[in-house]
Every structure is written in C-alpha cells, then in structure tokens.
C-alpha cells in the first residue's frame, strides 16, 4: 500500500478546466463554463477509481483532462511520473498509448464502415510497427478474451447487439496493453440484462491485465460494487472523496445522501428515507460563489451562499467539502446569522 502511494499512476493537482462561451458577437466573451474547478486527486496503481455525479458535473471533462484530451486551464496532470502537458509531442503520443477509453454509447464509438478487424486493430495500425499477421493474431486473441469469436472478424458493427458492440470497444481499448483505462458510463446505454455481463468482463480483464480503471457513473450501487476509491462531484467540484467502503458506511455530504436514496434497493422490506432535492442543477456558467450545492441542499445555511466549502479530511481516506459537516472555517469573515438555516425557495 505504501509503495503504491509513493508512485500513483495519476496525480492531478488543482486542475481547472474552463470553456469560454462565445457570445453573439465575435471577440466578446459571454462567460465561462467552469467545467472542472480546482480538483486534486491521486489514483493508485491497480485500483478502480469511481467518479460519480450527474450530467454537467464535470466528470467527463475531468476524465478527458486525465487522458490528455482536454488541456486544463490551470493545474497539472501527472501521469506515471510525467507531467502530461509538458511532454514533447512524440512523448505525449507515446504516453497516451498507455491510456484508453471505453465510451458510453457503443453505437457512435465504432465506425460503421469498418469491420471488426479494422476497428480493433486500428490502434496497432496507427502505431505502425506490426505486420498484418501479428495484428490479425492479436485481434483474434482479444476477440476471444472479450467473449466473441474468430468468425466475427469480418462482420460490421451493425451486425452486433449493444452489449457485443461494447465488447468490441473494450477489445479496441486494450489492444496496445494500456495500463490505464477510463470507462465513461460503460453500461448506461445498454439493456439492463447485459449490464452485469459487461461489468463482469471489465473486472475480469482488470484482474488479468492488472489495469487501473477510472469508472465514471451516476449509479452509486455499481460504484460500490466495483470501485476501491471514489469522488462525488457536483458542478465541477469534489463534494466527497475517499475510500468507497468508508463513504458508504458513513456518507456525510447531503448530496451523497441524495444520490444514495436514488439507488434502487431490491430489498423492499427496508423502508429507506427518500431524499428528494429541490430545483435543477444550475448552469455551470457563473456557478455560486460559496458552496456550489447550496441552492439544492436541504441542510444549507446562510453562510453556505458566500463561503466556499473547503475539502476537509474527516477520517482516514475520507474527504468532505461541506459546512454542515465540518462547521464553518474560523479564519474567514462570516457575517451576521451565517449559521441560520437557509429558507428554501418556493418549489413545491
């Protein structure tokens, strides 16, 4: 454990990603989408790291910043000891071969004009070091690994079901033996009865190839089952982070509570309290100055509006950013009546 901590595979330090929003006139910026703001995290070798949040929370942008698809506006991303955005072009390309991605939509992630062999072998083809024969042998090997057969080699994506397509996507992702795999909601576009197949395949492959996973999901139950550590994101910020076990045993952030209550529990005898959040996810353009969650938070106080909630370690490997949990920091100016509960907007 201590060894892995010394050498994490991904280390993100104060990463922010902003996207300018263009106004109607050129050269005039309407505003900035703060997709990710000041996020720091480390991912250890061989673990599965969960990123949980709803649409617009920045989880995909964060993952893209990790694999060098989006350049952060601030902060640095260190992958395997190398600062990703300071590498030379060739080194960057070479480093990036160690990372791959599995996409949410298995329909748009495979080129419909390519056959299975062309799709899976493409990363090898691009690298351009292998003969046709080795490529073919490798593709067949991978097809068998993901549960398809040699006979599928010259079929086209349209011949496959959603689950099978996702298997093809997985095969393509691991053909160059990456060490790091980002799974962006890999099952949410699939039929319920094939979810388990794909999740099992992913965990099997991880064991076999000793991969590190980043697993993006909005389903806490899945995250609980397959992840080791996780973060909960809301509007570009980390709300709660830490060991999955610790968080599920003792969820602290009100947002985590809300997400937990949205998960189906097949055990109907247990009556769980349903937390229903008010309002909508606010636009990431000009997010709230204080805690980003205060508008929808059932526990919000006056001070939450203006004072940003710092990430505070509450127990080993468990970080929470919430004034309700941690109390307001002492060093900042708080103003009158900062700890009175915030009146909820009329939204019933």
């Amino acid at each position, binding site marked *: 454990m201590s060894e892995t901590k010394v050498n994490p595979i991904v280390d993100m330090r104060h990463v922010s990603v902003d996207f300018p929003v263009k106004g109607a006139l050129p050269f005039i910026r309407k505003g900035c989408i703060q997709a990710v703001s000041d996020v720091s995290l480390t991912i250890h070798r061989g673990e599965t790291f969960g990123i949980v949040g709803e649409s617009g929370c920045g989880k995909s942008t964060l993952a893209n910043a990790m*694999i060098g698809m989006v350049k952060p506006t601030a902060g640095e991303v260190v992958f395997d000891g190398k600062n990703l955005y300071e590498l030379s072009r060739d080194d960057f390309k070479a480093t990036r*071969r160690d990372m791959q*991605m599995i996409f949410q939509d298995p329909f748009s*992630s495979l*080129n419909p004009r390519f056959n299975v062999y062309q*799709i899976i072998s493409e990363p090898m083809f691009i*690298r351009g070091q292998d003969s046709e024969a080795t490529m073919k042998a490798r593709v067949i090997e991978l097809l068998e690994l993901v549960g398809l057969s040699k006979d599928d080699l010259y079929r086209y994506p349209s011949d496959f079901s959603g689950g099978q397509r996702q298997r093809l996507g997985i095969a393509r992702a691991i053909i*160059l033996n990456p060490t790091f795999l980002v799974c962006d909601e890999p099952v949410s576009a699939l039929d319920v009865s094939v979810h388990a197949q794909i999740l099992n395949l992913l965990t099997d492959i991880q064991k076999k190839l000793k991969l590190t996973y980043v697993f993006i999901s909005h389903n806490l139950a899945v995250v609980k089952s397959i992840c080791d550590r996780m973060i909960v994101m809301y509007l570009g910020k980390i709300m709660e982070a830490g060991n999955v076990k610790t968080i599920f045993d003792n969820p602290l952030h009100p947002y985590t509570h809300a997400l937990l209550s949205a998960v189906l529990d097949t055990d109907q005898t247990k009556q769980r309290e349903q937390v229903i959040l008010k309002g909508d996810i606010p636009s990431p353009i000009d997010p709230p100055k204080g805690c980003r969650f205060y508008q929808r938070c059932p526990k919000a106080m006056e001070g939450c509006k203006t004072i940003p909630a710092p990430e505070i370690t509450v127990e080993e490997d468990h970080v929470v950013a919430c004034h309700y949990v941690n109390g307001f920091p002492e060093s900042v100016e708080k103003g009158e009546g900062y700890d009175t509960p915030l009146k909820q907007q009329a939204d019933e």
Partner: protein
Amino acid sequence: MKAVLKSIGRFFLKRFKGIRRFIKRVWAHRQGKIGLTMVTFLVIVAVFAPWIAPFDPYDVAERTTKGLPPSTTHLLGTTINTGQDIFSMLVYGTRVSLIVGVSSGVLIAIVGSVLGVMAGYIGGAVDSFIMRLVDVLLVIPTLPLVIVLTNVLGRDFWIIILIFVAIGWTGLSRTIRSLVLVLKNSNYVKAAELSGASRFHIMIRHILPGTSHLLIMSTALSSAGIMVAEAGLSFLGLGDPTAISWGKMLADAQSGGALLFGAWWWIIAPGIGIFMAVFAFMRIGIVVEEILNPRMKQSSGVYKIFKNLNSSYVEDVFNSMDEHAQIGEASSAKGGAHG
C-alpha cells in the same frame, strides 16, 4: 518497394470493391437500373462516336443535303443551312455534354469535399475563410458572372468547365462541412485520436469515407444540372463555338430558322439528348439519396411490402401467437383468465 506497391494495390482493390458493392445497391432499385443502363448507353455512344456516326458532323460542305427530313440515310434528317447530318451531330454532342457534365460534377465533388472537410475538420480561421468565400460566391448572380468570365477568359471547352466548378462547389462544401462536424465529434474519431492518430489519418480513414455517399449523390445530381446549364450557355451563344454540343445544336436550330421552315427534327433531336442524359443522372442521384436516407427508403419500401402482404399469411402469424397453438398438449390454466 514491393510492399508499398502491394499496399497501394490493396488500397485500390478495396476501394474498387466498395464501389462495386455500391453500384450493386443502386442496381437493386428499379430507378437505379434505368439510370445506370442509360448512363452506360450514353458513355458507349460517346466513346464510339466516330464508329456510330454515319457522317462527319463537322462537314459543312455537303450542300446537296440541306434540310432533309428523317430518312434511312439521314436518320434524324439534316440541318437547313449547312446540311449536316443531325444524327451524327447528336452522337458527337454526347461527348461534349457528358465530358462537361461529368468532369464538372467530379471536379465539384473533389473541390467541394476538400474545402468542406478542411473547413469542418480544421475549423478556426480556415473554416471562417472558406465559409465567407462560400457566402460571397452564393450571392453573386450566376449568369452575369458566367457571361463576364466567358468574355474575359474565352470560350474554350475547359474554361467553361472550370467556371462551372468555381461556382458549383459552394453548396456541396457547406453540406460536407456540416457532416464533418458531426463525424468529427463521434467517439470513434476520439478513440483514434487517443491511439495517437494524426489529423491526416483521421481525415483520410474516418472522415472522408463518411462523406462518400454524399459525394456520389452530389456528382450525379450536379452532372445533370451542369448538362442543362451547358446547353443553356451554348444556346445563348456562350459555349465553345468550335465544339458540337446539344446546346449549340439548339442554338443553331434557332438561328438557322428551324421553326420557320418546319424542321422539327432539328429541334427535337438535341432535346431528346439533353432529356435522356439529365433523366439518367437524376435517376442515379435520386436512388443514391434514397440509399443515403434510410427514412425515405422505409416509407416507400415498407409500404410496398405492406401492400403485397398476403392477408392469410398475416392471419397465420397472428394465430401462431395464440396460447393454444403453442402449448399444444399443456392443459393447465389458460392465460388471460383474470379474476
């Protein structure tokens, strides 16, 4: 060296296979059959014109044959003023019309796709520049521009083709650009980028093939359009004066007084030529569009299947869904018996 040649060979072989498969799909439609047959016919006529034409269409010295109506020697009669054989002119005219139409169509596809892909894929300043150029070209009225250009540059055959291309690429490049914007954001392009693919690789292997159907359709449709436009230009006297084209035949008929002397064959012959060529290319264009746009195919195809359905067959299928039919010996509680 050998390996390079081999891979180039394989590249073309694969492309060729794709084209053959595509032609097969077009052939599967009735309209496509008509179009392909007619285009093939026109191409044969154009290529073998010297063997097919019984007379020299450029021979204006034969004063004895002025204004003859259709007969066995002169299948479509002769012209009134010069006595040229109209059938031979028609056959040779196929060459000009086809070459102008098809080569403009192909050049438009090339220019339009290159500029469209560049605008869509590279984006930024390149995109702005190309799209503003399109805007400018689209607002300039075509005919006056053509008149000015033909007067300045001359009326050579190839210059006319270039003028058509210079005007015609705009619409196509715009369509291609919007398609490229969609393809560019697809996850398979992202996956290729992740594997270290260069921009060139992505353009050639992922983006350009994605636009190929559109290019074929555009070539067919713009070829047809340009054949008409070429005829119009020649009719106005703006075409190549030395080449025999269908438009020029019409113009000659008009100036030669075909209507005045009742020489209907002189007008109808080039008309049929233009009609056939445009009809053939339009058919192909329409079929390709139908293949491209599955919704169109469905609405016509499924409706046809629906109409041809045997009602007793449907009844059989419905009956086979019944519980009794399937359970056979099972005598247990029947489904649908609710309390």
